[in-house]
Protein backbone atom coordinates (compact mmCIF):
# COMPACT_ATOMS: atom_id res chain seq x y z
CA UNK A 1 0.00 0.00 0.00
CA UNK A 2 1.33 3.41 -0.97
CA UNK A 3 2.56 5.59 1.87
CA UNK A 4 1.52 9.22 2.05
CA UNK A 5 3.33 12.24 3.44
CA UNK A 6 1.56 15.44 4.40
CA UNK A 7 2.37 18.41 6.65
CA UNK A 8 1.76 17.82 10.32
CA UNK A 9 -0.01 21.13 10.82
CA UNK A 10 -1.15 24.28 9.05
CA UNK A 11 -2.60 27.59 10.14
CA UNK A 12 -4.97 29.82 8.21
CA UNK A 13 -7.46 32.64 8.70
CA UNK A 14 -11.13 32.82 8.00
CA UNK A 15 -11.96 33.54 4.38
CA UNK A 16 -8.65 32.31 2.99
CA UNK A 17 -8.15 29.43 0.61
CA UNK A 18 -6.22 26.53 2.11
CA UNK A 19 -4.22 24.06 0.08
CA UNK A 20 -2.94 20.88 1.71
CA UNK A 21 -0.51 18.89 -0.37
CA UNK A 22 0.08 15.18 0.02
CA UNK A 23 2.88 13.21 -1.58
CA UNK A 24 2.45 9.58 -2.58
CA UNK A 25 5.45 8.67 -4.69
CA UNK A 26 4.68 4.95 -4.81
CA UNK A 27 1.04 5.20 -5.86
CA UNK A 28 -0.09 2.20 -7.88
CA UNK A 29 -1.83 2.35 -11.23
CA UNK A 30 -5.22 1.37 -9.82
CA UNK A 31 -4.99 3.45 -6.64
CA UNK A 32 -7.39 6.26 -5.95
CA UNK A 33 -6.64 9.28 -3.74
CA UNK A 34 -9.11 9.94 -0.96
CA UNK A 35 -9.32 12.67 1.65
CA UNK A 36 -11.08 12.47 4.99
CA UNK A 37 -11.79 15.15 7.61
CA UNK A 38 -11.98 14.50 11.33
CA UNK A 39 -13.30 16.78 14.05
CA UNK A 40 -12.53 16.17 17.72
CA UNK A 41 -14.64 13.41 19.28
CA UNK A 42 -16.02 12.37 15.89
CA UNK A 43 -15.17 9.72 13.36
CA UNK A 44 -13.53 10.69 10.06
CA UNK A 45 -15.78 12.00 7.31
CA UNK A 46 -15.22 11.42 3.59
CA UNK A 47 -14.51 14.67 1.74
CA UNK A 48 -13.45 13.84 -1.79
CA UNK A 49 -11.89 11.18 -3.98
CA UNK A 50 -10.12 11.32 -7.32
CA UNK A 51 -7.96 9.39 -9.72
CA UNK A 52 -6.45 12.06 -11.94
CA UNK A 53 -6.77 15.72 -13.00
CA UNK A 54 -9.27 17.71 -10.97
CA UNK A 55 -12.32 16.79 -8.95
CA UNK A 56 -14.64 19.32 -7.35
CA UNK A 57 -17.60 18.94 -5.04
CA UNK A 58 -19.55 21.24 -2.73
CA UNK A 59 -16.89 20.98 -0.04
CA UNK A 60 -13.49 20.97 -1.74
CA UNK A 61 -11.42 20.51 -4.85
CA UNK A 62 -8.78 17.89 -5.43
CA UNK A 63 -5.94 18.57 -7.84
CA UNK A 64 -3.90 15.63 -9.12
CA UNK A 65 -0.97 16.19 -11.51
CA UNK A 66 -0.32 13.89 -14.43
CA UNK A 67 2.30 11.81 -12.62
CA UNK A 68 -0.11 11.30 -9.68
CA UNK A 69 2.79 11.34 -7.22
CA UNK A 70 1.13 14.08 -5.23
CA UNK A 71 -2.27 15.65 -4.74
CA UNK A 72 -3.59 18.89 -3.30
CA UNK A 73 -6.77 19.33 -1.34
CA UNK A 74 -8.11 22.85 -1.74
CA UNK A 75 -10.61 24.31 0.71
CA UNK A 76 -12.08 27.60 -0.54
CA UNK A 77 -12.77 30.42 1.92
CA UNK A 78 -12.29 28.46 5.13
CA UNK A 79 -14.24 29.22 8.27
CA UNK A 80 -13.58 28.42 11.91
CA UNK A 81 -15.61 25.25 11.51
CA UNK A 82 -13.05 23.87 9.06
CA UNK A 83 -10.59 23.45 11.93
CA UNK A 84 -9.97 19.71 11.87
CA UNK A 85 -7.48 16.99 10.96
CA UNK A 86 -7.31 16.14 7.27
CA UNK A 87 -6.12 12.74 6.11
CA UNK A 88 -4.83 11.82 2.65
CA UNK A 89 -5.11 8.14 1.72
CA UNK A 90 -4.35 6.11 -1.36
CA UNK A 91 -5.62 2.67 -2.23
CA UNK A 92 -7.71 0.55 -4.53
CA UNK A 93 -11.26 1.68 -5.29
CA UNK A 94 -14.27 0.73 -3.24
CA UNK A 95 -15.17 -2.62 -1.84
CA UNK A 96 -12.50 -3.93 0.45
CA UNK A 97 -9.79 -1.40 1.10
CA UNK A 98 -8.13 -1.13 4.47
CA UNK A 99 -7.80 2.65 4.22
CA UNK A 100 -4.38 3.24 5.78
CA UNK A 101 -4.50 6.52 7.67
CA UNK A 102 -1.36 8.47 8.48
CA UNK A 103 -1.13 11.12 11.19
CA UNK A 104 -2.94 13.67 9.03
CA UNK A 105 -2.64 17.45 8.82
CA UNK A 106 -4.02 19.49 11.70
CA UNK A 107 -5.57 22.62 10.22
CA UNK A 108 -6.24 25.50 12.58
CA UNK A 109 -8.39 28.34 11.24
CA UNK A 110 -8.09 31.59 13.16
CA UNK A 111 -10.52 34.52 13.28
Amino acid at each position, binding site marked *: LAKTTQPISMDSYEGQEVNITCSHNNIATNDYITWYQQFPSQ*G*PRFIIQGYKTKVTNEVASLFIPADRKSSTLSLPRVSLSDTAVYYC*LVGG*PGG*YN*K*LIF*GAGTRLAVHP
Partner: protein
Amino acid sequence: GAGVSQSPRYKVAKRGQDVALRCDPISGHVSLFWYQQALGQGPEFLTYFQNEAQLDKSGLPSDRFFAERPEGSVSTLKIQRTQQEDSAVYLCASSDDAGTDNRYFGPGTRLTVT
Protein backbone atom coordinates in the same frame (compact mmCIF):
# COMPACT_ATOMS: atom_id res chain seq x y z
CA GLY B 1 -31.25 8.79 7.62
CA ALA B 2 -29.48 7.37 10.65
CA GLY B 3 -25.74 7.10 10.49
CA VAL B 4 -23.41 4.62 12.13
CA SER B 5 -23.94 4.44 15.86
CA GLN B 6 -21.67 3.04 18.52
CA SER B 7 -22.20 2.22 22.15
CA PRO B 8 -21.16 2.92 24.73
CA ARG B 9 -19.58 6.26 23.82
CA TYR B 10 -17.27 6.04 26.83
CA LYS B 11 -16.07 3.01 28.73
CA VAL B 12 -13.77 2.82 31.72
CA ALA B 13 -12.46 -0.62 32.56
CA LYS B 14 -10.10 -1.87 35.18
CA ARG B 15 -7.09 -3.72 33.87
CA GLY B 16 -7.97 -7.34 33.36
CA GLN B 17 -11.67 -6.80 32.73
CA ASP B 18 -13.41 -7.84 29.52
CA VAL B 19 -15.24 -5.23 27.45
CA ALA B 20 -17.67 -5.38 24.55
CA LEU B 21 -18.12 -2.50 22.12
CA ARG B 22 -21.13 -2.37 19.83
CA CYS B 23 -21.50 -0.98 16.32
CA ASP B 24 -24.77 -0.43 14.47
CA PRO B 25 -23.90 0.20 10.82
CA ILE B 26 -26.08 1.97 8.30
CA SER B 27 -28.89 -0.35 7.29
CA GLY B 28 -28.04 -2.35 4.20
CA HIS B 29 -24.33 -1.66 4.26
CA VAL B 30 -22.44 -4.78 3.35
CA SER B 31 -18.98 -3.83 4.57
CA LEU B 32 -18.07 -3.08 8.17
CA PHE B 33 -14.69 -2.02 9.51
CA TRP B 34 -13.20 -1.55 12.96
CA TYR B 35 -10.36 0.89 13.61
CA GLN B 36 -8.36 1.80 16.68
CA GLN B 37 -7.27 5.40 17.14
CA ALA B 38 -4.69 6.37 19.74
CA LEU B 39 -4.52 9.94 20.94
CA GLY B 40 -3.01 12.21 18.31
CA GLN B 41 -2.75 9.45 15.71
CA GLY B 42 -4.74 8.45 12.69
CA PRO B 43 -7.10 5.48 12.84
CA GLU B 44 -5.48 2.07 12.44
CA PHE B 45 -7.28 -0.79 10.74
CA LEU B 46 -8.29 -3.70 12.95
CA THR B 47 -10.68 -5.92 11.01
CA TYR B 48 -13.15 -6.09 8.11
CA PHE B 49 -16.46 -7.87 7.58
CA GLN B 50 -18.37 -8.44 4.40
CA ASN B 51 -21.84 -9.32 5.61
CA GLU B 52 -21.26 -11.87 8.37
CA ALA B 53 -17.91 -13.04 7.06
CA GLN B 54 -14.78 -11.71 8.70
CA LEU B 55 -12.51 -11.44 5.68
CA ASP B 56 -9.55 -9.72 7.27
CA LYS B 57 -8.48 -9.60 10.89
CA SER B 58 -4.85 -8.84 10.24
CA GLY B 59 -4.95 -5.62 12.27
CA LEU B 60 -6.14 -7.14 15.52
CA PRO B 61 -3.21 -6.53 17.89
CA SER B 62 -3.50 -9.73 19.89
CA ASP B 63 -5.67 -12.77 20.48
CA ARG B 64 -7.37 -10.81 23.25
CA PHE B 65 -9.25 -8.94 20.53
CA PHE B 66 -12.23 -10.62 18.93
CA ALA B 67 -14.89 -9.25 16.59
CA GLU B 68 -18.11 -10.72 15.30
CA ARG B 69 -21.03 -9.81 13.08
CA PRO B 70 -23.25 -12.90 13.29
CA GLU B 71 -26.22 -11.68 11.25
CA GLY B 72 -24.40 -9.35 8.91
CA SER B 73 -25.60 -6.16 10.57
CA VAL B 74 -24.64 -5.26 14.15
CA SER B 75 -21.04 -5.96 15.10
CA THR B 76 -19.34 -6.37 18.45
CA LEU B 77 -15.67 -5.87 19.22
CA LYS B 78 -14.65 -7.70 22.34
CA ILE B 79 -11.43 -7.18 24.24
CA GLN B 80 -10.53 -9.72 26.87
CA ARG B 81 -8.30 -9.05 29.86
CA THR B 82 -7.88 -5.39 28.97
CA GLN B 83 -4.47 -3.78 29.32
CA GLN B 84 -3.57 -0.11 29.64
CA GLU B 85 -2.22 -0.07 26.09
CA ASP B 86 -5.74 -0.88 24.88
CA SER B 87 -6.85 2.62 25.87
CA ALA B 88 -7.93 4.30 22.65
CA VAL B 89 -10.94 5.31 20.61
CA TYR B 90 -12.48 2.41 18.73
CA LEU B 91 -14.15 3.47 15.50
CA CYS B 92 -16.58 1.52 13.40
CA ALA B 93 -17.27 2.31 9.75
CA SER B 94 -19.60 0.87 7.14
CA SER B 95 -19.92 1.19 3.39
CA ASP B 96 -22.20 -0.01 0.64
CA ASP B 97 -19.39 -1.09 -1.66
CA ALA B 98 -20.63 1.31 -4.31
CA GLY B 99 -17.18 1.55 -5.84
CA THR B 100 -15.85 4.50 -3.91
CA ASP B 101 -14.05 4.75 -0.60
CA ASN B 102 -16.84 6.71 1.04
CA ARG B 103 -16.86 5.05 4.43
CA TYR B 104 -19.33 6.22 7.03
CA PHE B 105 -17.72 6.33 10.44
CA GLY B 106 -19.42 6.24 13.79
CA PRO B 107 -18.48 8.60 16.63
CA GLY B 108 -16.33 5.97 18.29
CA THR B 109 -16.10 4.47 21.74
CA ARG B 110 -13.42 5.92 23.98
CA LEU B 111 -12.00 3.13 26.10
CA THR B 112 -9.92 3.98 29.13
CA VAL B 113 -8.23 1.14 30.98
CA THR B 114 -7.12 2.01 34.51
